């Protein structure tokens, strides 16, 4: 018998208009309790306005071993960054 509660990944939105960010994980018997636990573990210091939880097993991830083929090709494509444009001073911060 497996006694361990499932693992949940926790995502918190810090302010309105921002996106949810992964902040960590925790154990809980069900989704509702996971949200409550997330509230208690990750928002004690006023960090958030919204919480998402998802059971870790539902997350599909890239394999660390595939880092080369997946990400290295883009390293040499500097032209994909719009860094060659001169931004007029009047535009200010972008």
């Amino acid at each position, binding site marked *: 018998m497996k006694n361990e509660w499932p693992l949940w990944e926790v995502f918190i939105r810090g302010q309105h208009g921002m996106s949810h960010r992964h902040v960590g994980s925790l154990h809980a018997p069900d989704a*509702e*309790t996971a949200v409550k636990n997330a509230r*208690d*573990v990750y928002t004690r210091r006023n960090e958030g306005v919204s919480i998402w939880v998802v059971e870790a097993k539902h997350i599909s991830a890239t394999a660390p071993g595939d880092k080369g083929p997946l990400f290295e090709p883009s390293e040499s494509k500097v032209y994909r960054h719009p860094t060659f444009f001169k931004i007029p001073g009047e535009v200010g911060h972008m």
Partner: protein
Amino acid sequence: MATDKDNLYQFLLRLGDSSLILSHRTSEWCGHAPVLEEDIALANTALDLIGQAQMWLEYAGEVQGEGKTPDDIAFQRDAWDFRNVLLTELPNGDFGRTLLRQFLFDAYQSILMGRLIKSSDVTVAAIAAKTMKEVTYHVERSADTVVGLGDGTPESHTRMQEALDYLWPYVGELFQGDEVDIAMFQAGISPTPETLREEYDALVGRVLSEATLTVPESQFSHKGGRTGAMHTEHLGHLLSTMQWLQRAYPGCEW
């Protein structure tokens, strides 16, 4: 003859002391809860309760008018001067009993605070409004845990039923009014405790039945906490831990 001021002071002590003593009990779990998530949740609850105690006792100090701070009131009284309900001073027992005691108290607080929001005393109403937000979460959380453990494994169910049998005789005290309560009612500050019972029984009955727990039939009820007539033997032990530092080093600050 007790004056209005004395009655209000007693009323505020009852609210403040119940939060204070339950806060201390809950804090005893810090670092000992069965899982990290529950450990932090209990510590959060304890901190909410101590925040409430601070507000009630600060107002109590003002009403009393002897220049006492919430710390003076919390740490420099002996057991017979405390006015918390007995339920809050009972030993934690196992995790299930702690959460059941929490639920029985949270349910009471959620109903009482809902009424105190409309108090004629603006300070009481303001403290109740702030407390209500905390309590709404507390009662949801403790109710879920009571249902989870009560309707859980045979082992957890048995323990929860034992916990309910142990705690239930301390519930009646929450609804036993006296002359202080009547004075508060007449001043429009608070409802009398008896009038909260029906709503309480409905809320608690619903959760306990979902938790497959049976409410004991006996109507017997311990009393003496909120009047200060007689506390359980457990309060003195609790205070000796809680007050030790201020007793050994009076006025110590850090």
